[in-house]
């Protein structure tokens, strides 16, 4: 199976409370760039789908990673290559000039050229929190999609049985490739993803894999192509204009209560919440 994985870098999500909204931008100075966590899960999913879990050094297919960003974002691409991806594509653009509609249009051109069996994306990037590119891309390609995937099983005939986390439960879909899947948190649990090469009883270690040092050296030699946004999304511009930012209202600090009786008393008389 050939899989295209879309990835994006974000300001360190574990320190998202340190971002500073100013009138005209959200200042992330001082925060390290990290891969969007959901995109890391998408890459891990792609690797699991192109291997036998017992022998994960051999790729049974090809994994191509793509990002849209400036030259610095090649750091995240190299890291994905070191983790196991075969090739990388960077579409030159500044992040502030993009919205979901434009990103989806550019990715469509990448898919048209690469013809992957499957496109994997994180369900959302945790800076813009928009959750839209996978769905838009599916429509532009007229591909079936499964968003918020928590489990994926490749069946013997190559179809994909996907468990989606939806409000109130799990909705299962069976997709015939080529298709789009966006992944949720639990897709990297030990028994969430099985390629047809991996035994049903196999258990992965929890979470995403990390690159070994020799792989980091080798990744520097793997192919990385650069493309121009204008070539991939001709005539399209960013349709979303952010013109003001602000910090959310601060919550007043609360009090500590010494015991359960005081808690119930305060909830009843002060907060009038009971």
């Amino acid at each position, binding site marked *: 199976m050939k899989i295209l994985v879309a990835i994006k870098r974000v300001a360190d999500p574990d*320190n*998202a*409370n340190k971002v500073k*909204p100013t009138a005209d931008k*959200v200042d992330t100075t001082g925060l390290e760039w990290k891969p969007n966590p*959901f995109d890391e899960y998408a890459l891990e999913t792609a690797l699991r789908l192109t291997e036998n879990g017992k022998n994960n050094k051999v790729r049974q297919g090809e994994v191509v990673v793509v990002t849209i960003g400036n030259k610095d974002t090649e750091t995240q691409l190299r890291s994905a290559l070191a983790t196991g991806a075969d090739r990388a594509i960077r579409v030159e653009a500044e992040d502030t000039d993009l*919205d*979901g*509609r434009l990103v*989806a249009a550019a990715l469509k051109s990448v898919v048209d050229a690469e013809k992957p069996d499957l496109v994997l994306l994180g369900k959302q990037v*945790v*800076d813009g*929190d*928009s*959750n839209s*590119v996978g*769905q*838009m891309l*599916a*429509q*532009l390609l*007229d591909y*079936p999609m*499964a968003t*918020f995937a928590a489990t994926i099983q490749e069946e013997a005939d190559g179809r994909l*049985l996907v468990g989606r986390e*939806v*409000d109130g*439960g799990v*909705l*299962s*879909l*069976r997709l*015939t*490739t080529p*298709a789009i899947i966006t992944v*949720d*948190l639990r897709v990297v649990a030990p028994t969430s993803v099985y390629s047809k090469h991996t035994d049903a009883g196999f258990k992965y270690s929890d979470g995403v894999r990390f690159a070994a040092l020799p792989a980091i050296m080798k990744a520097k030699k793997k192919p990385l192509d650069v493309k121009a946004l204008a070539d991939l999304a001709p005539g399209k511009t960013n*349709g*979303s*204009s*952010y013109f003001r*930012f*602000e*910090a*959310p209202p601060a*919550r007043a*600090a*609360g*009090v*500590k*209560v010494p*015991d*359960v009786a005081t808690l*119930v008393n*305060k*909830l009843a008389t002060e*907060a009038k*919440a*009971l």
Partner: protein
Amino acid sequence: MTKVLVIAEVEAGKVKKTTLSAITLARQAGSSFSILAIGGAGTGAAAAELTGYGAEAVLVTEDASLENYVAEQYAPTVIAAAQGFDLVVATASSFGKDLIPRVAAALDASYAGDVAGAAREGDKLVFKRPIFAGNAFGYVTLGTPVQTATARQSEFEPAEPSGGSSPVSAFAKVAPGAAASRVEFVSLDAVKSERPELTDASVIVSGGRALKEKFFEVLEPLADTLGAAIGASRAACDAGYAPGDFQVGQTGKIVAPKLYFAIGISGAIQHIAGMKSSKTIVAINKDPDAPIFQLADYGLVADLFTAVPELVSALKAHRG
């Protein structure tokens, strides 16, 4: 003039309450709005309850092939129904978040997802969106001729009926495209519960990883006493102590109940993003330095395995 089309969420012949938040968004953003109710058997009957909200029209697409929600089956009809409208909205449930961006792409529309507000500023329609896990709000205008948005349910009060009787008409299902032939609905494993839905509950009792295998044993009596929904931190869900759809947080459910109990939850950024709009927050944790205490109106430093049963008794005593 902004004409809005609201996509109602219909499940098993019932209009879900989520729909009413999208109607509130439509009232705030538009000069007029219509509603499309799309689903399987019983959708037409269910749509009757949507005629009292001031919509210009209620369109009904009822078809056996729409019994279970699959985006590729629904989208072509929604796209056709959207012709002539300036803005297409739904609530940011897993239904709206799945469907609306797909519809947006077909309409070459930009999309404002999970919005917390919508207002006119001059001749512009401005959406307010929480970004960076709720650590900032961004105000955005969409420059495409047609716009699309989903409403964060906790930020839009359910619409109240406004009287009148909107005309109801059938809207024929549009045959789906190639994508639909390559996706098959297999099952919906719904968690059956007598409790209120998380996104709709006025009281929520959420637990963290500290509860371990006693997650439900400890929390259920408290939830029963308060008539509360049960939620969980990501850590508790990841560890398998609670199902995934219990998760409250940036990437789970966004909630804003009147009263929120965070029990054995440290208060990771990602969790706080999902519950910090709650009116009153109570935290019970044995670690006095847990970040959740900086947010909680009332904090109790205690071992939850003794404090929660004590709280259940005290609440029962309080109620007499």
